[in-house]
């Protein structure tokens, strides 16, 4: 083949001329959720603002030193720009509504049910193919339920007089402690990005003793997966 034609083909192939499609690149992203008591956060952090990589390191050390609940980590393996949902936890089912008991009966039977994951659900999609050393944007929808739900009674026996009778004639609805985040996160290399940092007031004003906590969620691309 003449040299001139060969060089032209070489340039076209570099510039994206007719080529065979490459398989989508795989990469692993890790979501890390850390919670520390607000009193500890205030004491250690004060008003300083640290880069996410340093912040995550400091928080992990606090968790380790003070023997707090370990950070929650969820890993998702992404292929190209395909959407992926990763879940970790246990599904609970509860009644949204009940049928009226038959004549002579008082026990409720569920009519409508709903499920919720107690744990983490991460739906994530890379918006472009990864390129080395280039920032990359990800669509993220995150739902995290912290613990098994508490419940509260909902009375249906309106004519019941005493509190005890009214409680007996009650269904129970759940209360979930939940943090959701959705948006676009920009990640560069394997540097963690802070998605959200939130003050959670516990059972504020109820006197139940649940203290305030500081919860932070980070997202990063695993270094090994980008090589």
């Amino acid at each position: 083949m003449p040299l001139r034609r060969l060089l032209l083909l070489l340039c076209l192939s570099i510039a994206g001329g007719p080529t065979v499609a490459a398989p989508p690149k795989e990469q692993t992203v890790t979501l890390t959720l850390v919670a520390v008591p607000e009193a500890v956060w205030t004491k250690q952090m004060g008003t300083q603002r640290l880069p996410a990589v340093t912040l995550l390191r400091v928080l992990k050390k606090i968790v380790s030193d003070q023997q707090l609940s370990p950070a929650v980590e969820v890993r998702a393996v992404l292929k190209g720009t395909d959407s992926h949902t990763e879940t970790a936890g246990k599904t609970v089912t509860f009644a949204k509504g009940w049928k009226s008991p038959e004549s002579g009966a008082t026990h409720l039977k569920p009519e409508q049910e709903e499920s919720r994951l107690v744990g983490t659900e991460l739906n994530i999609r890379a918006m472009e193919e990864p390129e080395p050393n280039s920032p990359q944007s990800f669509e993220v929808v995150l739902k995290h339920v912290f613990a098994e739900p508490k419940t509260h009674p909902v009375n249906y026996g309106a004519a019941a007089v005493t509190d005890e009778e009214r409680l007996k004639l009650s269904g129970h609805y759940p209360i979930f402690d939940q943090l959701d985040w959705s948006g676009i996160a920009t990640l560069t290399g394997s540097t963690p990005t802070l998605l959200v940092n939130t003050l959670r007031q516990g059972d504020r004003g109820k006197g139940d003793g649940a203290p305030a906590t500081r919860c932070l969620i980070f997202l990063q691309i695993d270094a090994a997966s980008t090589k």
Partner: protein
Amino acid sequence: MKTTLRAIFLGLLLASPAAGQSPSSPELRQRIIRVPQLDAVKLLTTEASSDANIVETLTRWLADGRAQVVSDVTTAVNLQRAVIVSDGRRIWLPSEKDQDFDRLFLVPTNSDEELIGMNLTVELPTQGDVLSPTPTEARWFLSHTELDPLLVKWPASWLEGKDGIHGWMEWYDTFRQTLGTELMLRPGTEAVVGVFPAVTHAWPTTENAPPAYLDLAVAGLEIESPAGFAPPKPKARAESQGIMEDLNDRLIFTGILISSYQALQTLASRPKVPDEKIFATLLQDLQEGRGGLRFCLGSACRPGQRIRQESGRDHEYPTEMPSIPSAWDQRLVGTSVDIDPAQQGVLGLVLEHHIAPPRRQEWRLGVNEPELQMWEPAFRRLKLNSYPIVPVGACRLIGAMKVPSVMAGAGLKGDETLLVFAHHQGPKPQPDSLSDAPADPFAPNSNGAGSEPVPDSLELELQVFEVPVDEAAKWQTAPQGQWAEPDTKRFEAMMKKVKMETARLVAQGMLLTRSEQSCLISLEEERMTATEFDPATDAAPHRTRPTALDQIHTGTLFEVESLVAPKGNGVADRVELKYEVRHSTALPEEPTLEMILKSAGKDGEGPYDEAVRFESSWQGQTKLKPGEPMCLGAKPVAGEKGPKKVLVAFITARVVENAQ
């Protein structure tokens, strides 16, 4: 050869990575900081109330314990899409209930999820891919709830059978603070986004509630600059360009309750005493324990962008088959504002404030059976719909209304007047580089400088007096539609009678608006009246229950439509307007259960006795000379048996020049 090299160069160029790498994710932080109410009002409405000063003061107060953080969220943000953060407890509450009448089982068949916590949605609709250190537009929606849903028990009565069956149906009220607005954020600084009454107890508008607080939402944007890039510091840049540091306008609305006597003197002192001085005096009185601060709320805004803000308790009440509630409506018992801030300080304003918790209306459903009853709430609220002109840097009294005596009781004193002020703060208009250049219509805070002059305002006042019935003839007026001579002398005579206690001021209202707009102010109790009933049965001839309800507004209403604009130079010959005035002297008298059973007739079709309303009203169209009161005439009080008094209404219109 040259062609070959050109091809190689082109190929390499096309294959090179995209230019303009973006910095790492910018972060946005919102804190809600709780501050004692009076401290917050003073901080927000003084001259030195820039965002920087406010944030600096809040930081000091947080350090010394005078303020506390109730919410603190930092989130990554991106230009391409809105970010939504939702954090708190999700509690499921019944939304529908089945009805098993015989056992009075009211079983929840469906439910909805309510968030107790924070929901924040922020969009940065800036063009481009990269967030730069220059000010950025942000669309803001926040919803914050702190209190758990409140269980409310409603009487439920099924009237069939010998004994009937009675119980208590449980339903839930919720609480919230919400704000939707649009503002500018400068990276590296914080701005006040919104100001809300704190919702910390069961009835947010109770006069004797625990010490009141305001919640200030403060937000800031941080960008991590790429290595080696140092953005200019905002202050230095502002100084070099001669631009005020604040980027946004801020509108704050305050309601202060004072004695009606003091209100009469205060209104009479205007315009000699400017509104700013009146407000400062009232604030001083509040700090010394006189009067009551009923509400304060507001937000950052940009001209032309709509703001909607609410704070209070969502009170659910039954609407259908209310003796066993089967359908519900909801009303915010608190304070809400809806504003269209146009250019030149003209505000399209809808403000509602519940001045006291709702009163409870009760209906008996069975003779000698006190447990069989039905309840409905009677909301007691101020409504202010107007187009006040509040220039940047100004404080204006935009409305006032005396609390009607019929509304007193159950937590509300009579003989007091609520004054509503608006403060409009913001950057002064930027000077043009050419003195005769037209204003940039696309500048966010131009306030129209250099374009059309600020229009004049119209101030409308209402007084209603009570005089003995034998004086009615003295206070009649010319037939409707005809030219009405000024009534200055008759007004002065009436004021003398008030001083001598031979007449009584029963209603007083004031509105600030723009001409050629409709406006109204009312302080009323929204009461229900039953209009249809289930007929009594042979088995239970002593029982009946309402099946349809209507609403009766009881209090004072002042509504005006200004038809002709005054001249722009502040001097107008006449102000032509349509008006409606209504004032109640007593709560409506509902027919008793016995009267209903009697008027039902053999077939139970009625017609039923209706509620008796005690009120006087005036409607019409007139022209009046600015600054001179006009008498609308004397009206007997409808509903009174053998009237002993009449009511006489006066209205006054003034044209207020607005500074350029």
